């Protein structure tokens, strides 16, 4: 690798100084790396270059002497001579800026970009200072809302093509385009079609002027009264690196950081604009205890002592598994560790689950060889048997899309439903459970029943042992029980031992929960109850003797009256558990429900005791993303009222039981995690905050994980909002945002953790029921904007929550005699019914009805029942 690079180096001179650069690298980048900043507007390091703004003109020596050339479009070559500062260059820059300002309004004081605007900054630094144009400026209607989230002010647009290029090339939905020609050019959407992209916020972030502004940030603050801290988004399991910015103890916005291994600077809108929910006035701000039908505020002390006595009572019955804990996706690694330690180390119950019927068993996740995102997007081939990634983990979709677009990998999808991955796939195969089994067993064999898939894999050079194959594994169709997916993965991993798996479940930090024992039968470091390390046994005095219950078993136990005390820590089963009917009836039957929550969700509003928790950006800690990468999550604002971080609540409860969990800060917990978990050896707060590791460290830490490239310097024009707050000043030649620190070796204590092998977990294929007569197959999936406390408490995002509709193909509709807009009655297995408006969609297969999870919550109706391997529903005209 290094020899390749050195062979490829070319020597060129910039302003008389010799520098070395990689051959083929763009001049603008090579110059920036050597410390010469060339002004630019249209160039963005994550977009293909177009060379339209002409701001980066420099003098380059050619056969006829020096001439002006755009440095963003010019690859470096051997012996190139470049002048970036001369009369001629200055004149060109003056001219470009004078031209750009002909029509650009001077309403900087009202503009949200004012103070962090590349046009403002570069005009000050490189501009002529005055204009010869006194003519009337071009006028458009001032900001028009092109979506619920984005405002467009066409007067300010300088036609740099960044947003349109992003929408077309990166996001793949060109909903905004240049309209018109010449000085009438505008960026706009198609009439009456909103800019309803999941990635629209990125166009706001990269806009070099104030043409695109975000509705949630509109007029909220100015750059000079913002402060920021780096963190990781916890809206899904991707863990995108973000800058959290706040003003006056109120969150104002998140901006995507360019992290090479994770998000490339992009965010989805749900993550980006979710901060509004944290500022919501409907937060739970003090402990509340149920009195009859309503809540009464109480003190922490009395709430905690009540919990203490409840735990003692439940344990007095002799069976600690009468106490259960359900962990939600809000929790950091430290929160999870503290609660798991409370449960398994102090109380002695193993009934801890972090998945609500929509995940995969912890043992299975732990047994499968793990792939990183980078490995996935550069694999020879990717096999996707997962939910629609665009709807669940949008930024992973961008990464995958970019890789496929650039030919780095090829995608094969397997599943029951059509999804946005189909467009990217070479082959997309529709399977039944039996076919999935066949596929898992003989996917690479010549005799395969799926010749198209094997053909793609063999063409891509995937070995017969799965070498070079990465499987994206998730819940493709929630109407299929997780056991089918688990069996598929285990079977596949057995027949292709070298294939790696990227678990694409959506819940934030699901991976941390598995790694830290937040699922039944596992302990921190993915060890099982039997294989607990001595150091863990020493720290966790009261380890449970036998495996506990998962969410489903806990609910069934509750129905039998065997659950006395249930903690819902950031978890809302009434809304989120797949079989909502089971969750509802079970929760009504639990002795005492304690909900640790940020809002009064469906579950917490019917709990017996509600404790206020600190939300994201109100606490520090770490999170683990889907590939096992651990990042820091930082505090930016103070919690309202009496909210506390979840881990402190666990510690306090332990104190009520006269036990000390033994930590006083999130850093202490991380240190303890590194001590007891073989998977996390070598991890420390110090290491994670070193510049080289800001993009996180994949656990277990290996030598390759440590050779992370230092974060590239921050291009202030690519990410204007971040650099301006960082600098609070004028653009300099280079913003050295992070020094290129190196990271030390993991230390001698490091030893390879015991990886559970696939051989130890037996694939058990459930018996798929025969489709009952008169029923239809169910396609049950998520959309990005489903009902959920976080979205419903965000004023802007809540407008985007999907409508409850059922989708069937036109052929099926004809058979039913129904038309678009008709009302259909959908009945589940237990006879629960609900009415849905029909939408005809021919991407849905015949004989399938598609429902969107989280778009409805009808009492009595749950299309998916937890005791069915495959769910069918009855559909008829209402």
């Amino acid at each position, binding site marked *: 690798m290094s020899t390749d690079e050195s062979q490829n180096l070319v020597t060129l001179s910039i302003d008389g100084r010799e520098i070395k650069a990689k051959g083929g690298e763009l001049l603008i980048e090579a110059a920036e790396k050597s410390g010469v900043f060339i002004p630019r507007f249209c160039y963005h390091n994550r977009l293909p270059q177009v060379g339209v703004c002409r701001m980066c003109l420099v003098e380059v020596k050619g056969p006829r002497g020096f001439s002006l050339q755009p440095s963003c479009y010019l690859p470096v070559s051997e012996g190139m001579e470049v002048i970036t500062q001369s009369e001629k260059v200055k004149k060109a820059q003056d001219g470009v800026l004078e031209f750009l300002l002909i029509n650009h309004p001077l*309403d900087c004081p*009202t503009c949200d970009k004012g103070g962090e605007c590349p046009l403002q900054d570069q005009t000050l630094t490189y501009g002529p200072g005055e204009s010869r144009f006194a003519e009337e400026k071009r006028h*458009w209607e001032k900001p028009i809302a092109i979506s619920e989230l984005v405002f467009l002010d066409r007067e300010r647009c300088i036609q740099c093509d960044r947003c349109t290029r992003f929408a077309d090339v990166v996001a793949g939905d060109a909903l905004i385009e240049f309209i018109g020609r010449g000085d009438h050019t505008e960026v706009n959407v198609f009439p009456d079609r909103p800019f309803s992209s999941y990635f629209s916020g990125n166009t706001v972030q990269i806009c070099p002027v104030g043409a695109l502004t975000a509705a949630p940030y*509109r*007029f*909220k603050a*100015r750059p000079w*009264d913002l402060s920021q801290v780096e963190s990781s988004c916890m809206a899904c399991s991707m863990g995108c690196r973000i800058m959290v910015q706040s003003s006056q103890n109120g969150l104002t916005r998140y901006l995507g950081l360019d992290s090479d291994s994770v998000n490339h600077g992009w965010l989805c809108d749900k993550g980006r604009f979710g901060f509004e929910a944290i500022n919501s006035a409907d937060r739970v701000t003090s402990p509340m205890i149920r009195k009859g039908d309503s809540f009464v505020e109480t003190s922490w002390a009395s709430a905690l002592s009540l919990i203490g006595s409840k735990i003692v009572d439940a344990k007095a019955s002799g069976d600690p598994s009468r106490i259960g804990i359900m962990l939600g996706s809000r929790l950091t690694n430290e929160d999870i560790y503290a609660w798991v330690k409370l449960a398994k180390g102090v109380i002695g119950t193993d009934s801890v689950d972090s998945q609500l019927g929509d995940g995969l068993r912890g043992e299975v996740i732990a047994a499968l060889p793990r792939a990183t995102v980078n490995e996935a997007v550069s694999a020879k081939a990717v096999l996707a048997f997962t939910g629609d990634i665009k709807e669940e983990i949008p930024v992973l979709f961008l990464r995958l899309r970019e890789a496929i677009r650039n030919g780095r990998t090829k995608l094969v999808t397997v599943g029951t439903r059509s999804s946005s991955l189909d467009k990217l796939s070479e082959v997309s195969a529709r399977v039944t459970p039996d076919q999935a089994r066949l596929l898992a067993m003989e996917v690479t064999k010549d005799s395969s029943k799926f010749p198209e898939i094997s053909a793609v894999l063999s063409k891509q050079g995937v070995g017969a042992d799965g070498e070079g194959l990465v499987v994206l594994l998730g819940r493709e169709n929630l109407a299929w029980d997780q056991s089918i997916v688990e069996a598929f993965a285990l079977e596949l991993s057995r027949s292709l031992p070298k294939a790696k798996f990227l678990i694409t479940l959506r819940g934030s930090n699901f991976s941390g929960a598995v790694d830290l024992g937040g699922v039944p039968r596992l302990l921190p470091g993915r060890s099982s109850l039997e294989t607990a390390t001595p150091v863990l046994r020493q720290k966790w005095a009261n380890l449970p003797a036998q495996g506990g219950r998962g969410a489903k078993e806990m609910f069934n136990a509750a129905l039998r009256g065997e659950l006395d005390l249930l903690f819902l820590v950031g978890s809302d089963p009434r809304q989120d558990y797949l079989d909502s009917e089971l969750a509802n009836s079970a929760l009504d039957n639990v002795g005492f429900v304690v909900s640790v929550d940020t809002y009064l969700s469906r579950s917490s509003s019917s709990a017996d005791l509600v404790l206020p928790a600190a939300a994201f950006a109100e606490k520090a800690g770490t999170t683990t993303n889907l590939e096992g990468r651990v990042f820091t999550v930082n505090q930016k604002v103070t919690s309202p009222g009496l909210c506390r971080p979840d881990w402190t609540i666990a510690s306090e409860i332990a104190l009520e039981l006269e036990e000390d969990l033994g930590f006083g800060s999130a850093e202490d917990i991380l240190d303890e995690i590194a001590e007891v978990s073989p998977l996390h050896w070598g991890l420390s707060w110090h290491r994670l905050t070193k510049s080289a590791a800001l993009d996180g460290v994949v656990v277990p830490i290996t030598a390759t994980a440590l050779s992370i490239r230092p974060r590239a310097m921050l291009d202030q024009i690519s990410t204007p909002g971040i650099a301006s707050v960082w600098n609070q000043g004028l653009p300099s030649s280079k913003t050295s945002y992070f020094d290129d620190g190196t990271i030390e070796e993991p230390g001698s204590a490091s030893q390879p953790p015991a990886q559970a092998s696939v051989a130890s977990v037996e694939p058990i294929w459930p018996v798929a029921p025969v489709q009952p007569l008169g029923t239809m197959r169910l396609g049950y999936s998520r959309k990005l904007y489903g009902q959920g406390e976080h979205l419903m408490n965000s004023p802007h995002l809540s407008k985007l929550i999907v409508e409850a509709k059922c989708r069937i193909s036109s052929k099926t509709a004809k058979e039913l005699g129904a038309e678009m807009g008709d009302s259909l009655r959908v009945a589940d297995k237990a006879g629960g019914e609900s009415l849905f408006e029909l939408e005809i969609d021919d991407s849905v297969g015949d004989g399938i009805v598609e429902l969107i999870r989280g778009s409805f919550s009808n009492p009595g109706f749950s299309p998916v029942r937890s005791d069915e391997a495959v769910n069918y529903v009855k559909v008829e005209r209402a």
Partner: protein
Amino acid sequence: MAVFDALGGFKVTIGQVFQPRVTKQYPEEKRKKPPRFHGRHVLNRYEDGSEKCIGCELCAGVCPAGCIYVRGKDNPPDAPVSPGERYGYVYEINFLRCIHCDLCVEACPTEAITETKVLEFSFTSRRDAIYTKKELVVNNDGTPKRLPWEDWRVGDDEFTSGWMRATSPQGSKDFEGRTHWSGELGEGVRKPEAGQSDLKSEDASPRYMIRKVEADRISKRHGGKVR
């Protein structure tokens, strides 16, 4: 001689006896304030009554004492508070911190904030020291609010600002493109100085005519409407 030496020592003192007195009978009697005296702030209005403040927070950004707190908001479309998209929704000055350096006045792009010469105002609680929009915005006729706890004297509201051009007054056509002074509090009354043309006056700049013709042509090409 010793007596004369002693008297010589009192030379300056004795000389002062015959000088006019500088001590004033404050507060009954007050000195005239210098022309550029910096006193308590006001937030001005345009002639049509709309507020000049657009909530841009430049004053807050430049304030060395950090005593200004501003928050902007979208102008309500049916009843705009100020011209343009944005108005100052919250505007607070903490006069316990203010050092009356006038940098806010210099930073203000619309001359919304100016300083009067009122110097005497005191409070009995810290909270009262924070002036909000209620106290700061001038009356509809452009005169400052004279608050009961302030001691206003003649001339305290005169000669407080530089000149400005109305950026784009809302509403009435009569105010379109007019250059005027905001020399006094509130509305502009002074005539433009030499070189600052009043676009409505007889000697209008020919450039304006070109601009107007161009603008008409542009809108004509588009069938008279702007998409």
